[in-house]
């Protein structure tokens, strides 16, 4: 038995847009650190003062 059903994948809330997003294969090793749903959100995050 391999894999997890798509509807059972873990999800997070994007810290920039506030929308939920779902686990992807390319994040399997860094899922703990993933904060943004997309490249766009990563780029539009507010500057740290």
């Amino acid at each position, binding site marked *: 038995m391999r894999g997890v059903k798509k509807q059972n994948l873990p999800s997070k*809330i*994007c*810290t*920039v*847009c*506030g929308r939920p997003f779902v686990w992807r294969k390319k994040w399997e090793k860094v899922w703990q650190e993933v*904060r943004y749903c997309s490249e766009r959100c990563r780029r*539009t*995050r*507010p*500057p*740290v*003062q």
Partner: protein
Amino acid sequence: MSDPVQLVWFKRDLRVDDHRPLSEAARRGPVLCLYVYEPELHGSEELTAAHLVFLQESLVCLERSLRELGGTLVLRRGRVVDVLHALKRETSFVSLWSHEETGSDRTYRRDREVAVWCREQSVPWHEFRQDGVVRRLSSRNGWSRHWEEFMRQPAVPRPSLRGVRGLQGEAGPLLADLGVPPSDKPDAQKGGAAAASRTLSSFLSDRGVNYRAAMSSPVSGWTGCSRISPYLAFGCISLRTVNDELAARRSELRTADADGEPVDRRWFGSLQSFGSRLRWHCHFMQKLEDEPRIEFGNFVRAYDGLREEFTASVEGRRRFEAWKEGLTGYPMVDACIRCVKASGWLNFRMRAMLASFSAYHLWLHWREPAVWLGSHFLDFEPGIHFSQFQMQSGTSGINTVRIYSPAKQALEQDPDGEFIRRWLPELRAVPVSWLSRPEQMPAELQSRCGCLIGRNYPAPIVEHAAAVKEARDRIAAIRRRSGTRTEAKAVFARHGSRKKSATHREHKNRQPQLPGLGEAIETATAAERRCG
């Protein structure tokens, strides 16, 4: 004929353990224990309803303990000299016993009135030290030895008492009906000696393990700080008892460690940090003891006139109101203000940030913000409070100017936005990346998360970078003057800590000293760590 009555006046020492005036009085005869509810003090701006509730809880606990020891607590209302006068007629008490108090000007003036009354009536007033603060200290050199010496003396055991009965105002029945208004702080700590010892023991046995790391954040600090401060302020527990318990716990941990039992290493550093803070507690109070005027005026008078005019202006008033309401547009500041209003407590770092923000960002003179914030600290201790407020406002002259960035504090001390969201419901739907600076949210996001800046939550009341730059320049201009440096040296001689910390030495080796200030400069780290 019965023995003459000894009168023990309870002030900020609402306990029976390690209470020397009580035990000394008890050795000499029947003891009448008194607490005075003073409208001029208890009804003043210094105290809020939460203080009175805490006081009442502490008195209930004290009354029970005194009764168990065979004594009685009498509660009277009025000016202390009037109360003493009446009691003298009723009981012919021969001596007055109390602790020395390093309090606000109100209590200082009241104590001088009492001293005059005692002289006129030929009633000796025996006052005892209750912590590391030394009365009529001749020099700050070697001050820490006084502290050590006092703490080394064994705690005074609770005495058995011969009470004086039949007086009007016996506290038992009265306490239920002190006329105390409901607390304005739903999340405040509960008063009393029993609560004090529970709080201390849970800290030393469990909560304190990560103290050193946990104290900086208002999230982890809520349980990771000792929370013993209101009990020290009301004297529900003595500083010496706290120090003794700490010493016992440290030796227990050392023994366990030496015996090869598993010990969490973090305890060692944490308890050392806690021990330092017990010293700093008295170090700061000593400043007010030595120079009571610092409750009202700058340590270094060269800073007089710096902020007064602006503070009184329309814009100054507007900023002060916004700060008090928690509506500055800086979420970390606003959350802290609302937290302290609801609970009477904040960790030290956040208190320092609030003071620094009012002084530098808002350019307000420290006096009004200090009085207001003090009235909301359940653990309000005038000596610590006013020295600290001056230090965080740059008017102490002997500390580096330290300006906190509320956004940076939010990112570092509340990375998940837990604290900000708890106290600012209007920001609950704001994604965490924007919580430190919600005004930067794109308009679309503002409307999507129901937080329109300027409508649901204010835009920042001042712009951070510009405000900080201007404040820094204005302080520096005064600091550079030779008159300021001369004064600062005098402040250091009178009040400065003689201890050079490791970080201080490091700092000194790296950076050239400001000319003329010499030893007077504390490193930012050392200054920041004061008084956790």
